[in-house]
């Protein structure tokens, strides 16, 4: 297999992207390894290669990053402007290996959680709360995070002041998880002023998410 190595240390953007592009254009399949010494170049080479339909892996050490671009091994069609590679986390000091998240969830099928209760499962209420908190601890660490959370009926309490999972919702919001909160339910429980996370939604939109979900996880 062809392996090309290009050292782009000391080069400012957009030079590393141009060099990576040229190297990839010259091979029909194989690997191109690009060494860069700044995060802008790392991000831009990754952005370019992923949007051109190649697989990218990054290793970071001492402010240098080694990007391994594999050409001709991906099944993901290039779709510039449609893919969501997400934010590449900064490489920690030391020798960390990260596989850059592939373009979006496989097949672009959204993962949707439906919270129709403020408890998880039927039984003792305090156990239901504990289980729910535990579920959210897991959700914030999911990679990639869920696409959408829907809160309805007593589930809307989870998005309001006094909820035991507000901190986790904030983290998920920062990771771009969409949160829809049933407006009818907020009105019913008189919680309109207490909403702390997500945005007020209606059954039309909620039904769209439920029917458009690739995987729907009901929590009740």
């Amino acid at each position, binding site marked *: 297999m062809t392996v090309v190595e290009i050292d782009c240390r000391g080069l400012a*953007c*957009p*030079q590393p*992207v*141009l060099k990576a*592009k040229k190297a990839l254009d010259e091979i029909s399949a194989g690997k191109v390894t690009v060494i860069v010494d*700044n*995060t*802008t170049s790392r*991000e*831009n*080479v*990754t*952005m*370019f*290669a992923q*949007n051109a339909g190649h697989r990218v892996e990054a290793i970071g050490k001492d402010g240098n990053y080694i990007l391994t671009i594999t050409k001709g091994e991906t099944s993901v069609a290039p779709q*510039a*402007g*449609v*893919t*969501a*590679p*997400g*934010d590449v986390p900064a490489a920690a000091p030391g020798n960390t290996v990260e596989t850059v998240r592939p373009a979006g969830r496989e097949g672009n099928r*959204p993962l949707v959680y439906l919270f129709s209760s403020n408890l998880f499962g039927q039984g003792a209420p305090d156990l239901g709360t504990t289980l729910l908190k535990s579920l959210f601890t897991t959700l914030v660490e999911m990679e*990639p*995070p869920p*696409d*959408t959370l829907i809160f309805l009926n007593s589930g809307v309490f989870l998005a309001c002041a006094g909820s035991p999972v507000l901190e986790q*919702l*904030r983290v998920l*919001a*920062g990771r*771009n*998880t*969409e949160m829809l909160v049933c407006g009818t339910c907020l009105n019913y429980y008189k919680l309109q002023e207490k909403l*702390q*996370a997500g*945005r007020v939604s209606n059954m039309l939109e909620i039904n769209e998410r439920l029917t458009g979900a690739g995987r729907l996880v009901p929590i009740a």
Partner: protein
Amino acid sequence: MAPAILSQVLRQLPKIVDENLLVGLETSDDAAVYRLSDELAVIQTVDFFTPVVDDPYIFGQVAAANALSDIYAMGGRPLLALNIACFPGCLSPDVLREILTGGADKVKEAGAIIAGGHTVQDDEPKYGLAVTGLVHPDEIISNAGARPGDALVLTKPLGTGIIATAVKAELAPPESRTAAVTTMCALNREAAAVMRAAGATACTDITGFGLLGHAAEMAEAGGVSFTMYQHAIPLLPGALELAAMGMIPGGAYSNREHLSERVSFAGSIAAAGRMLLYDPQTSGGLLIALPPEQGMRLVKQLAEKGLAAALIGTVTGRQPWLIRVEE
């Protein structure tokens, strides 16, 4: 410079309190405003930078339009300008003359005058202006007045930083270059005049911190949050494709680093599309908050003047994020 570093430095400076200083450092506004009398306040601003285009005459125009923009964003009218130029001894003085002519022509178009200036010898050319403007104290449009329910209008397309990067790589299509130059040279004068008449509640101009950076300052200063719609945000031709090719300036990543915790994106929005909203703009448009019934009218009036303004979102009460971007 990077917003995170700048705000850290500015925090350490002594706070200025003066009852006539109507707009100072605290709200990260576009310019300082000082009341001279009950009918008159003076607006003061300065901006200069390294060349963003090869043609020195165009560079002069862009730098002047950019510096004048801060006066317009405060609701004022420019009166006087002073040139600031850095210039290397090895370049022909003709180049400096072209830059200054471009600036002078743009200031003239704005109805103001250049009253002098200052030059310094330096390795890399830089040009800009200090501009003085006037405004009635009751008609100042700060960046802090946006109210829940207001509409948000952006008056110029985004992407000048990305296209400038692509120009360096010789990858920018001619129509992208032309559109970027046209938008950077355009004064925000017309947009500001229409905005004043429409009863704008808040305004800022979009420059180095990108749309999201300046919008976040505006939301923060007003104690509100913004919801924006990606599909409605005007972009320069080719900008999205060039972003997807990795033609993104480092400043866009600094802006994202500074803001990422306070901005929330719908998961379906692609990375390239997100980076456009962080792209540092040179001589960008105005971001205007105004009553919703005025929003469409403003866009229509600007369209009649040939400006590609667009309704891009709404103002809400404070949310866990400052800005939410929907598809």
